[in-house]
């Protein structure tokens, strides 16, 4: 396959469906175990790799009516065991705590994509303090999942902004103080590694061991597991790749590292993603690209059986989930 030049004109040269066909794979839905809600694009940070293009300037937010409908869908479908709340910084949504409390009351496992620094930065618009979050998470036994691109400042601040590493360490100490990541507490605290550029993550288990060693030795910190996630070539990161002339090389790398075993475990086979308007998507990346499930549907028309029959939509960015050891919201897939 000829590599296309940077830019959109020749993007179709990276044909994910053809790669699946060559590998003899037919990736159909297996279940809907997780309902993943992107409740707001507002964030106290503006990370360079963010596939949501989240920032303090964003205003998109899910309405209370849509949140209540998501809860009704959870209540009506006990087979959906987990709620995964993301953003932006989801804690900045005014109904975030209502959503968590109601979902846990329904007996669902709740995961929150928590960026750590929001604890210290507070709300970027209202300036409301957010330092109560560790206690709130612990009260509801939420699984906390937080990005920390490396166990050192250099990579972390390069990707997430100056001063983020220091604040992240302090926020992690606060989470540890209420029991998160501490053996026997039952409070799960996982970290996420993203490469700080157009390269693939190192082996998840090796990185996890190194993170644990360094964060414990240097900061006395504890966490449960590390998820390695590949940077998706969309939005802000794609723009960076194009501007720096690295887009084609990155896509070539993802294509060359296509791993059928990783492809079989892609997360879109087991979740449904919901945007702030209530529209449904195969994953959060498709959501950010406006690629709704086919046929288009919303949380107000949620039909489990129909969704299980849908054809998952793939595009060239999907090579990000199938390269090397694979990538998903829960880390490596192979």
């Amino acid at each position, binding site marked *: 396959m000829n590599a296309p030049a940077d830019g959109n004109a020749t993007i179709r040269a990276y044909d994910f469906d053809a790669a699946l066909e060559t590998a003899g794979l037919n990736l159909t839905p297996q279940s809907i175990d997780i309902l993943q809600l992107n409740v707001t694009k507002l964030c106290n940070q503006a990370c360079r790799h963010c596939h949501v293009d989240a920032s303090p300037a964003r205003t998109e937010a899910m309405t209370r009516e849509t949140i209540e409908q998501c809860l009704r869908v959870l209540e009506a479908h006990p087979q959906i065991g987990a709620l995964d709340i993301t953003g932006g910084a989801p804690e900045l949504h005014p109904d975030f705590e209502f959503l968590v409390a109601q979902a846990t009351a329904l007996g669902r496992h709740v995961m929150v994509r928590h960026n750590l620094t929001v604890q210290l930065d507070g709300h970027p618009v209202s300036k409301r303090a957010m330092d109560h979050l560790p206690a709130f998470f612990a009260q509801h036994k939420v699984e906390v999942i937080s990005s920390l691109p490396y166990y050192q400042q250099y990579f972390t601040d390069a990707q997430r902004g100056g001063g983020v590493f220091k604040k992240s360490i302090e926020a992690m100490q606060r989470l540890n103080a209420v029991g998160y990541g501490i053996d026997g507490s039952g409070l799960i605290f996982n970290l996420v590694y993203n490469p700080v550029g157009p390269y693939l*993550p*190192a082996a998840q288990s*090796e990185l996890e061991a190194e993170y644990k060693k360094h964060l414990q030795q240097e900061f006395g910190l504890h966490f449960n597991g590390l998820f390695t996630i590949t940077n998706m070539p969309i939005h802000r990161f794609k723009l960076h790749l194009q501007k720096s002339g690295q887009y084609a090389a990155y896509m070539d790398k993802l294509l060359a590292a296509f791993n059928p075993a990783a492809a079989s475990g892609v997360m879109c086979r087991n979740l449904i993603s919901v945007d702030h308007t209530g529209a449904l998507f195969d994953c959060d990346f498709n959501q950010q690209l406006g690629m709704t499930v086919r046929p288009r549907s919303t949380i107000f028309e949620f039909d489990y059986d129909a969704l299980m029959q849908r054809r998952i939509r793939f595009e060239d960015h999907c090579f990000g989930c199938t390269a090397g050891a694979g990538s998903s919201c829960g880390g490596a897939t192979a």
Partner: protein
Amino acid sequence: MSHYFESDDLKKFGDIGRHAKSLADQFFKYYGAVTGTDGALTKREKSLIALAVAHSERCPYCIDAYTTACLEAGANPEQMTEAVHVAAAMKAGITMVHAVQMNNHLDKLVM
């Protein structure tokens, strides 16, 4: 005007088999076995060694390739820079140890 060491030329590495495919195939099999897998040394350790050699041998292709390989093996800039210092120290040591030969010859020449 053509140039040496265009970064895009690294993609043509596989073409070295154009006129001697069997030998190239054997080389790449060996190369992959040595550098691409964990053995008695980890992939990261091998990548750091390769990065150091890339500098001492002054190969721009290899510096690009093994900077990326080190990152993909989880190495950080401190470790990578130390590896380059090992190469530099070896180069300096190799230069300096030749002074023994100089001194030997001085001893022979000087009455």
